[in-house]
């Protein structure tokens, strides 16, 4: 029953992933984003209330299409229901918990990161130099697989605790 239920959940998350052609890159990346919420601990003040939504936002061009929205729809973590938001400016994005910074914002990256300083937003991107620039998690493609890098220092500065288990999966630890 549990297996069936679990299967159903993932069936919704990755539509036709078992039988259909392998998932696209962004489908995987959307799932990764969703799963990060499980291994990251936000400080209590990061949420207005105990059941406030876990807001996942995209800043810049939305490369996911609707994949991300689908991946998080109706999901909940620690009583926080997920919520998708499209941001156009960094100021809009300060109240979200996870922010995917699109590659289109590569040029404005330092400004964006600076704008987020003092907030407990987990920043995720897929651009080179993101970690160096002070981003927290950056997707990379290695061996035709999606991997990620983690900047634990930056996360700690933002009051986020990233689970060691997640850390052990990251390709580079800083």
């Amino acid at each position, binding site marked *: 029953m*549990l*297996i069936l239920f679990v299967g159903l959940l993932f069936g919704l998350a990755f539509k036709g992933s078992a039988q259909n052609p392998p998932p696209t890159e962004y489908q995987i990346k959307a799932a990764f984003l969703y*799963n990060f919420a499980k*291994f990251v601990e936000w400080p209590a003040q990061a949420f207005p209330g105990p059941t406030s939504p876990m807001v996942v936002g995209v800043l810049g061009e939305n490369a996911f299409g609707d994949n991300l929205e689908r991946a998080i729809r109706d999901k*909940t973590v620690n009583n926080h229901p997920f919520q998708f938001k499209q941001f156009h400016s960094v100021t809009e994005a300060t109240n979200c918990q996870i922010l995917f910074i699109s590659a289109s914002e590569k040029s404005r990256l330092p400004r964006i990161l600076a704008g987020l300083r003092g907030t407990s937003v987990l920043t995720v991107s897929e651009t080179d130099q993101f970690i160096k620039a002070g981003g927290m998690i950056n997707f990379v493609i290695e061996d035709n697989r999606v991997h990620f890098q983690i900047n634990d220092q930056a996360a700690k500065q933002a009051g986020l605790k990233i689970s060691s288990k997640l850390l052990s999966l990251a390709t580079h630890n800083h």
Partner: protein
Amino acid sequence: MPRFQDISIKRKLTAIIMIASTVALLLVSAGFVTYELVTFRQTMTRDLSTLAEIIGNQSTAALTYEDQKVAKEILAALSAKKHIVAAALYDKDGRLLASYSRGNNPAISFPSRPERQALRFESDALVLFHPVWVSPDFAGTLYLKSDLQEIDERFVRYAAMILLFMLASWVVTLFLSSRLQRIISRPIFHLADTARAVSGTKNYAVRADKHGGDELGQLVDSFNEMLGQIQRRDSELQQAHDKLEIRVGERTRDLRAEIAERQRAESALKQQFVRMSLLNQITQAISDRQDTDSILHVVLRQVEDHLGLDLGLVALFDAKAQTLNVAALRVKNSLLAQKFDLHEGSVLSLAETGLQRCEQGQTVYFADTLKETAAFVEKLAVTNWRSAVAVPLMVEGKLFGVLVAARLAADGFNSDDCEFLRMLCENVALAAHQARLHTDLENAYNELRRTQATVLQQERLKALGQMASGIAHDVNNALSPVIGFADILMKGGYGLSPDGKKYLKYIRMAGEDIAHIVARLREFYRAREENEPLQHLDLNALIEQVADMTRPRWRDIPQSKGITIEVRTELAPDVPKLAGIESEIREAFTNLVLNAVDAMPRGGRITIRTRVVRHERGGRHPRHVVVDVSDTGTGMDEETRKRCLEPFFSTKGKRGTGLGLAMVYGVMERHEGNIDIQSEPGKGTTIRLVFPVRTKLCEDKEENEKHAVIEPLQILCIDDEPLLRELIKEILERDGHEVEVSDSGQSGLDEFRIARERGRPFDVVITDLGMPYLDGRQVAKALKQESPATPVIMLTGWGAFMKEDGNTPEQVDGVISKPPRSRELREALSRFHPIRGNSRTHRK
């Protein structure tokens, strides 16, 4: 190997303790080990679950992100756990993500798909599937497989430990039990030794020692007590035994005596039985016999055989003469038999036998015949029979006979013998008496049968005679007018020519011949008519006469054919003269001689014998004269002999009339004599005529009749046959009587009455007997009622019978046979009317 029951108590006790302690120890150990193993298995599963929890938790990220490398690293850490044989991680879709096997064993296979949460023991392993959750999602499954080596090791350790403890406890227990069992076994051994000693030496004075107050102590006490009792009993037993010996000795002597007594009784009984069966045998033997003689002989033979008698004798008692008649005699020794002067048929007077007491039914025993004085007993003594028993045969309390048994030895009979003879005699007497009754009965029966045969014969002859007379009656009726009218014609006055007279004479002769034949037919059963003349006859002379007269038939004719027949007469000289009819008797003898001649076609001898029979010996008056006519001819068989007297019975075919012997029979009947025929085929025939001696003679009436005076009478004649009527009228009218005729009984009566009314009654009425409507008897009865004095004469063909049978009706004064002859009619009239005739004469 000895059975457990047979080994000594000492070992038994030790073995019992050892077995009990070992079993207890084993049970405790088994419980302990089982508990330990169960507990350990629980521990194992708990440990494995904990391990799975840890590993699962570690691998959540790796599973979430399906990082094979990290997963493999996590699993590789299990190499520290040496019991983990294999481990694997499956992603949320059930695909194998990473695996681990101890020492990289390639032989190990992993389930292709994970199971849902499970924990189970397999044959050699403990298997666990642990689902991993990353809240809120299912991340994957951890698979762990642990070997059971740890359990096995523990088990071996436990076994070794138990064995060690067991050995140690055995040693200790053996030592302790071998010490402790003595507490129980020693008193028992002591008791056993004591008992063995007692039974071996039979010394009941020995006592067992007591070691304590427990059950064994009580046992010893009881044993000692028992020994004491046995000791007492033993001495008592010995005393009883001694007494018993003495008593057995006495009893044995008694028994021997008793056995001897019983044997004597048994042999006596046996003898008794033999006697009884002998008695039975004899009784059966005699019960089959019907005559006294053979019964007596059978009895004597049986008694001699079985009792060993030297003399057996049965004499029958004649009460009237007071004599004993020897009926059966049996002597064993033939020499003695010659010497003994009695034989069957000897007669002894009761007095000279010395057996008078037998008459009262007493048995008489002569223990020694030499000491007796009676003549009969002396005879026994002379013949060397020294002892004798006489047993009476009694029937209905009366002496019937005496059975005498004798033996050579003096005092040779015991009471058994006497008793047996007595019992036997009761049966013999009964049987002999029975036999005598039987013989009497048989004689009586035979006599009766003979009588019956004679009566039957007579009846038959009588019937035949009646028949013959009936025929004769009719013939006579028819013949009467023929002869009567011929008579009348012959007496003349009718102007007959000489030739006519001659022919008339022939007619009359022929008629007479017919009458004669009819008479002969009737003769054999015709009573002698009263008016027949009886003469004094000399039978001897008559026989000589017949022999002479028949000579041509028995000598001349046969001689011509070469056959010789001899006639011999043996005549008694003193034959008295008999009253009889000479012609008849002569004819009878002639018939017998001629029959004898006919019976001897090849010749032979005829003997005619006369003798006189006087009833009492020396009696003066002869009663009967017997004439035997014997021949040596062919004889007759029984059937012929029985029927030869019947009329018309003949064996001679056409030559015989069948009337010869019938006539003889008739003659003998008329002479009140008897005829007896003895004959056998091939042996000849003897015909015996027995004449009673009669002396009375009939008076010759003929002379008187000639002088009878008959006056003319008024006579009424009633007859339904006109010819007879006319004949009688003619005859009577010739004698001067006045005759009226009437053709029936009724018209006769009418005539009679008319005549009386006129004052001229009839003097005599002659009436026929057989008439239609009113017959002769009724007519006579009516007449006598009206005029009792008028004589009535009956005219009938049955006349002879009416006289013979005494059957003459009361109302009839005389009977005349048909055909009526003038002489008879005259006689009858003169018989009824001489008085009147005479009186008239006197009156004149």
